[in-house]
């Protein structure tokens, strides 16, 4: 396969305070190909959002720290860049959209000012040209009355429109990589469908790679080319989307899929995973899912599991899964 656009190697992002070390991201490897939509799926506390903030080098300071690893975008290790160089990357090579467009947009700047700010930072063009570009982009993402909306403020727009504005702002410099952290979680289903369709159009039109972070396996099924399942700061399964839904191998992935009620079938009792996610300040020595795992063996509690390729392109962090995948 061609050189990946983004290669994350052994990334560790910890929150360190006097007595504790919270290992939010604990040694992950992820490759994103050009034009690929990669979904990172996991529950709260799995480290999925910290992974994206690490890529942007926006881990909350002073406690949050990327303690080791590499994040290589197009041959360049982002973790070696100076803060100033990184400013040139954000919004230009990599952009990000967030769950809550109202908190991510600046309430006292007009939509036009916010979008042109991004363009003017990265492109040597006049303010007028930038505004023209902003209007074009808003039209492209399906914002009605774009010429007027550039003069309006975020509070005047609906949730769906705000998210479109966020996407327009993120895409205006045609980045190589778009990070989307739960972009549709706050939206209604009919609006979610619109926004997901728009993101796919962005990929098709600009060839942008997308890392889509979500807890919703329905969104994953709809969007993903490749899926990375995270649990307790680690990648537990990584495989193309078709195979993930057809043959999930990690007990956590399987349990997660079984826990979701279906719109097309009735269940007497819903499968449920007992217990809760382990505390990131004191992970168990063995497999981090062992205490909730229906298949756990005594050995699981002792030995940390490694991510292995059990079938071509299918990686699983579970020693119970045999070669070839059972």
């Amino acid at each position: 396969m061609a050189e990946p656009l983004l290669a994350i190697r052994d990334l560790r992002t910890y929150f360190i305070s006097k007595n504790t070390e919270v290992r939010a991201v604990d040694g992950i490897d992820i490759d994103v190909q050009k034009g690929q939509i990669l979904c990172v799926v996991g529950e709260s506390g799995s480290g999925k959002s910290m992974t994206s903030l690490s890529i942007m080098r926006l881990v909350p300071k002073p406690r949050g720290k990327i303690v080791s690893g590499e994040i290589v975008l197009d041959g360049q290790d982002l973790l070696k860049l100076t803060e100033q160089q990184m400013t040139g990357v954000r919004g230009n090579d990599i952009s990000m959209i967030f769950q809550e467009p109202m908190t991510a947009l600046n309430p006292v700047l007009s939509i036009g000012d916010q979008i042109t700010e991004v363009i003017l930072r990265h492109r040597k063009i006049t303010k007028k040209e930038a505004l023209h570009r902003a209007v074009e982009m808003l039209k492209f993402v399906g914002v009605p009355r774009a010429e007027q909306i550039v003069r309006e403020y975020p509070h005047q727009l609906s949730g769906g429109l705000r998210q479109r504005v966020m996407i327009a702002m993120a895409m205006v410099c045609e980045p190589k990589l778009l990070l989307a952290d739960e972009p549709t979680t706050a939206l209604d289903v009919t609006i979610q469908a619109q926004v997901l369709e728009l993101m796919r159009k962005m990929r098709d039109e600009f060839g942008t790679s997308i890392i889509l972070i979500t807890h919703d396996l329905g969104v994953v099924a709809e969007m993903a080319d490749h899926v990375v399942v995270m649990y307790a700061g680690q990648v537990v399964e990584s495989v193309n989307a078709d195979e993930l839904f057809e043959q999930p191998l990690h007990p956590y992935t399987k349990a997660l899929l079984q826990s979701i009620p279906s719109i097309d079938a009735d269940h007497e009792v819903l499968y449920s995973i007992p217990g809760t996610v382990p505390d990131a300040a004191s992970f168990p020595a063995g497999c981090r899912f062992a205490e909730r795992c229906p298949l756990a063996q005594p050995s699981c509690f002792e030995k940390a599991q490694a991510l292995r390729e059990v079938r071509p392109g299918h990686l699983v962090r579970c020693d119970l899964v045999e070669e070839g995948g059972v």
Partner: protein
Amino acid sequence: MADTLLEVRNLKKYFPIRAGVLKRTVGHVKAVNDVSFDLKPGETLGIVGESGCGKSTTGRMIMRVLDPTEGSIVFDGEDITKLSGSKLRAIRRKFQMVFQDPYASLNPRMSIEDIIGEPLIVNNLANRKQATERVAQLLETVGLRADDRARYPHEFSGGQRQRIGIARALAVNPKLIVADEAVSALDVSIQSQILNLMVNLRKEFNLSYIFISHNLAVVRHISDRVGVMYLGNLVELAPKGEFYSNPLHPYSVSLLSAALEPTRKQKRQRIILKGDVPSPANPPKGCPFHTRCPRVMDECRIHRPVMKDVGNGHLVACHLHA
């Protein structure tokens, strides 16, 4: 026992919009506009719809936390629409509410015992000592430990807090629980734990639920009947099997088609609605859905369709099925 536990008729809630120095009423937000349904003892009615459709407002009117502008609510044979004071307090323990956000709905300064025991003391159902025993018993009913009663909300995870919220609702032996997005803030693995708990409690205590949610799959799992709201109106109401196999209102059809399922197998034809929900302060004339409806007809722009029984207990408000 009566055949109907709850009878809701033509319920409306208009919030006035005030403007200017004199704060004169310049219009109304029609949050709920003519909602009627019945609920049998032991039955679960799921109410689905998007933000702003009036589903929470409906739930809160039934709880009598909000006063309806028009319409009536008959609970257990008694008209509670206009009750107030001690009479309202007396009947209120028969219906309780479980909220969406388990972080915001528990007082952080109260111990679990005080949180769950408060409704017992307030309603004079128990003295301190009896309350302590009852709290211990309730905690075990919802899958927590009796020893947890001395702890405080911050010591619990989201799922555990939701269990505490459920225990508080159960404390006064209600007949009806209104659950407003009760599992929406929870992770998938925790969500299924709480759903199973609610199903078990329903059987154990013969509870009725009004389960308000935007999640159609969750509603399918827990409900006997499903009602769909759009812009303050109930547009479809049908038994679960009917609704999911044969949705009739174009809005219900598009909602079901937009729901994302965790599977890559054959997908329903997706209908992506254009635009946003109109403002409830200025709802369109005629059918509230006509501005986004893929099957709109001339008549829809003029006359508002009324709920009509098309057989099998399936009600729909749509000119296509008139």
